[in-house]
Structures are given as C-alpha cells and as structure tokens.
C-alpha cells in the first residue's frame, strides 16, 4: 500500500503548485507593453513651464583646478549652458575655467523658458607681496589673524599682575586653540601703562607675562611652546592719558613666535 500512496501524493502536490502559480501570475497576454513616457521625469506632458537648477562644487577654485557642474531640469526639451553649448536635460560636467565665470543655463520647453545661474570664482594667484615675517615656516602656525582671533590678550588691573576673571576666560579659550594647533609657539609680551617708573614697570610686565604663562601651562600648554618678554612701558599701544588708554597698555599680549 505504501508505494502507490506515495506516488499519488507527489502528483497531488505538483498539481497544487501549478494551480497556485497560475493564480498568482494571471493570464494577461492581451495587454500592451510598458509606456516609456510614464517612467522618465522629463517630457512634454501637458505644456507645464520647465524648471531648472544648476550647482557647482566647489564654488571657488584656484587657477588650474576644476569644478563639477551639476544641473537638473524638468519639462525642458532643449537645455543649453553658455560656453558649453547644448547639453542633456540632466547632467554633470567637469570644467576648468581660467577666470571667474557665470555658468548660465537656459532650459526651453513647450511651457516656456527658464534660466539658472551659478558663479564659479577662480582665485588667480598674485605675485607674492612682502613676506610678512613668515620666514621659513610656511603656514604651519596659521595666520596672525586667526591666532589673534582665538588667543586674545589678557588685561590687568592697575599695578597688578593677578589674572582677572576676563583674562582667565581669554586664556582658557587661547589654551583650547593652542591645544588644537600644536605647531604654534607663542611669545607672551608683558606691558604696563605709562605711569610709574620705567624699571619697575619692566619688572611688573615680566610678572604679568609670567602670570599668563603660568595660566596657559596650567591649562595644558607645554612650557617649551611659550616664551616671555617684558616690554614694560617701552612699547605702548596707546599714548593718550586716560584710563581707557592705560587699560589698553596693561596687558599680556600673545603673538606667534615665528
């Protein structure tokens, strides 16, 4: 009994599978193929106005470098870019302009015309100007501007070399910048206002610069990156006789030690 029963069961399973497959796929041999117009984005459906965008990456280059233009349009039939000519409705192209250029895209369609622009700036190197003390260490300390923006001078009270809270804040920020830029070495100048005596003010300036130095070291800056010079009242920032001016002169000034 077992052998005939098994053969019958196999046949039944195969028939059931066939019926199931037929039911799922259906029998639509009479339908037409896929309409290609329904798949792509472009095309001239019912006369809508075209849209267009164009972008460049990067927006600014040095002379000789290239930039990638990337544009997208809709409802356009003819797309042109000045200086390149007719292009695909959507596309990318690498260009290397020799000077700053406006890339002007015109997308024409049945619904009208649309324009899009992108400007690529080309930095043309100029003849090197006076080498402003940059010497033999190109760039690894960054610019003076960036340094002074991030490492701000510490100002002191009259005849004092204790760090005020505002000076502490300035030095904390400065220490963070120095931690992020380990190539920077700093010279700390100690200054005093024009009152008082020259010799004493030089000693006081030394104490002021050393206060700033100690605070930077406490904030994690390596001592061998810091150099201290006292200028006392010998190099004034401001020469008027009022408290605003005197305050300007009572400082520990941080500079790049090039």
């Amino acid at each position: 009994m077992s052998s005939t029963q098994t053969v019958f069961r196999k046949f039944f399973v195969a028939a059931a599978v066939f019926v199931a497959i037929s039911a799922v796929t259906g029998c639509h041999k009479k339908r037409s193929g896929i309409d290609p117009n329904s798949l792509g984005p472009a095309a001239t459906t019912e006369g809508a106005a075209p849209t267009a965008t164009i972008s460049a990456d990067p927006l600014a280059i040095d002379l000789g470098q290239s930039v990638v233009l990337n544009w997208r349009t809709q409802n356009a039939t003819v797309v042109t870019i000045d200086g390149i000519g007719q292009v695909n409705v959507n596309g990318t192209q690498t260009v290397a302009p020799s000077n700053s250029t406006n890339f002007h895209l015109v997308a024409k369609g049945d619904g009208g015309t649309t324009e899009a622009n992108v400007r690529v700036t080309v930095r043309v190197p100029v003849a090197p100007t006076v080498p402003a003390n940059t010497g033999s260490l190109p760039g690894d300390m960054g610019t003076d501007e960036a340094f002074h923006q991030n490492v701000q001078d510490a100002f002191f009270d009259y005849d004092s070399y204790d760090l005020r809270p505002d000076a502490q804040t300035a030095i904390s920020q400065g220490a963070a910048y120095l931690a992020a830029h380990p190539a920077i070495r700093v010279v700390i100048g100690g200054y005093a206002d024009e009152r008082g005596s020259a010799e004493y003010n030089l000693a006081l300036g030394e104490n002021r610069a050393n206060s700033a130095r100690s605070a930077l070291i406490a904030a994690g800056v390596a001592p061998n990156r810091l150099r201290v010079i006292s200028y006392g009242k010998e190099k004034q920032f401001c020469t008027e006789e009022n408290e605003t001016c005197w305050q300007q002169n009572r400082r520990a000034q941080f500079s790049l030690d090039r």
Partner: protein
Amino acid sequence: MFRPVCKSTNFHPKLWLAAMALLILYGPQLHAQDWFKTETSSGADRIRIAVANFKPISADAQTSSVKGTFDATLYSDLASAGIFDIVSKSLAPQSSPGTPAEINLQQWSADPASAAMVAFGNLGVEGGRLVANGFLFDAKNTQYPQVLAKQYNEDPSEESARQIAHRFADEIIFRLGGGVPGISETKIYYVKMGGGNKEIWEMDYDGANQHAITHLGTVTLSPRVAPDNSRLAFSSLGREGFQIRVYSLLLGRMVNFAAAGGTNLSPAWAPNGKELAYSSSRSGDPEIWIADINGGLARRITSFRGPDVSPVYNPRTGSQIAWISGRTGLPQLYIMDTDGSGVTRMTDGGYATSPSWSPNGQFLTFAWNRKYGPGAPGGQDIYVMEVATKKWIQLTHDGGRCDFPSWSPDGRHITYANTADGRPEHMKIWTMLSDGTQKRALTGPGADMPNWSWK
C-alpha cells in the same frame, strides 16, 4: 669706592653735614610748607667769591674766543658748586687783573662786591699752545693773600679752555670746600630717545658736550658707569627680551656679559668695581642677583614673589643694597645686606622707585609718589631720606613728574629727570643741589635716566 671725608682740614665738611642733619631733623615738620631754606642754602655760611674775567695775553681772535669759553665755564662751575656765594659779574670791579701785581684787593673786598675770595689770572694762545695762569687770593688778607696759583698748558681749542676752567674750578673747590674733590670733570650718562629707539649718551656734568655712546638700534635703558669710568653697564632689548650688556669706554666697543634667561634690568656696580647687582627673572620672578662683571657666578639675593628691581650699593661700605620691591603691592624702598639678610623697609606707602645712595652712605634719594593711585592728588617727586632714621625731605615740588635721581660724587648735587607735563617724550635731565635749590635743566626734551659718574 670709598670717598674719604677729610675732617681735619677745616670746618666746611662738618658744616655741610650739620646742615644736612638739620635739614633731616626738621624735614618732617618743614615739608608741610612748600619751600624752606636751610643753612646750606641761606648763603650765611658760604664763602663769597668773585671771579674776574681773565686777562688776555695777546689780542688775537683765537685768544678772545677761548677766553670767552674759559670765563663762562669757570664762573658757572663755581656758581653751581653749592659752597659759594658768588659775586654777580655786574657787581664786580670792571678791571681784569692778570697777575698778582695788577690786583687791587681793596677794590674787590669793598662794597658792592664784598668778596672774601677772588679768582683771577691771564690766558692766551702763545706759540701754538693755550697757556693760562690762575690765582686765588684771600681778599681780606692783604699781607699774604695768595691761596692758590696754577698754570695750565694745553692744545688750543674751545674744549681745552673748558677743561682748564674745570680743573681750576676743582682746585678752588677742593681748597675751599673742605677737601672734597670738585665734580667739574665728572660725566653724566643718560638715555636719549630718538626714532623709537633709546641709546646711551654722555655729557659733561654741566650739560656741555652731549654725544652718543651706543648705536645699538634698540631700546637701551639704565646706564650705570663703573666706579673707575672704564665700563658702562645697561639693559638692552633684544630678541630674548632685556639683557644686561656692558660697553667698554676704554675700548669703545661692547664687551661680553653672559646672557641669562628672563628679563634682566637695572645693573648697579659694586663700589669695588668687581660685581654687578641687577634684577633678573631667570627663575620666573624678578629678583635681585649679583654676578661678576662678566655675568658669571650669579647668585640670587632676594626670594619674594613680586617685582624686585633697581638695586644700588651703599657706595661707602659696599656691603648694603637699597632696592625697590613690589612684594607687598605698590613698589617700596628697601635696604638689605649684600647677602640678602637684614631686609628693612624704608618707605611707609605710596609708590617709591629709582633709589640712589649718597657717596657718604648716609642718605638715599629716590622718586616717590606718596599718594599714588588713580585720581590721587600730588605727583612723583624727588625725596632724600636719612638711612639711619628714615626721616625724609622733599626736594621737588609741583614741577611735574620726576624720576631717576642720581647723586654726584661730592654728594652736593643730584641729577634727575623731569617732565613738566607728564609726557615721556618731554622728559629732560636736570641738576640741583642736594637740598633742592639751584635747579636747572641740562638737556632738551627726550633725555631720561641720568647716572652721575663716580669721579
């Protein structure tokens, strides 16, 4: 350097000291009133001296030119000596006695000249040499009037005429001033500002002959001449900050002084000329250090947090140092022994700077702003303090900011810097007697930090 005070010759040095003592004794009471006269400035005890114009030996143009220089210099030296009541030239007889035979002493001792002493002589260019004969006569002693007779023979020039006058004046001052050598041949070293730099200049004690010593093209401060006039120490700004540097006045060039870390300021020569005390922050805080004259064997003397600067030796003993310390806040005047012991605070407040120790070791002069602070009244003036008692007198009043007093080697004069309107570029160098009288400017604007030579 030990400067002997001759006590046996006659009464004048004692009078001088007595006058200073009196001045100090009554100083605190007297300072309330702005102006005071002491025995040193009253004229009562001063010798009234007349200076005749020297008689020209010949009538040539060169003689009259150098004679003008000589007469003016001799008169100025004696007038500023601080020990004479000098007869104004308008009160003196019109005669120019050239030799002892030509002088009529009654003419000089009578009114209005009323001179006790007369200096006279002759001078001229003879055989390519400048020859001068100078005499000092006691006008009241008609029998043996001659006190002094000197002859000089130099290359003919304005400079020689000035030098001869200085030497003759110093002879008179030495003889009549109690054996204390005159200062007419001493120099003053100072800082001259120009073009953003400061260089060291030298001039004669009377402001003549101003000329540059250094050409370092940077900021150079605090000139201090060695006791033997051989070297000049100062502090100069370089790439590593201020460093002590030494210039040889004999070689005319810089000589070695070992550089140290930190800011190094305000050198001071020991009176034996073998050591320099100065402020150095090589250990992180400005302290007083002493090194040999090449910068070697440096040792630290002070050890308190805060600025320590402007040391100066007691020139009499060489065993004490006065200096300025900010260890308690505003800078104060202190003294100590050269081994750092025996620290004594001298000023009781205010803002004190720039000490100079008198040659006899008794007094300190310094700049002091007794009511220092924003908006505080008063100004920075020159004071003299007696070391033993800490009693002081004020020498300058209401004349603007004063600083950097420096004693002359005879102790009778103090040179200092003053700016009438407080602007640093208007600073001039002045001189005065050490009782605050006879103030006069030696330089134009742009001169600072005078240092009087030791001899």
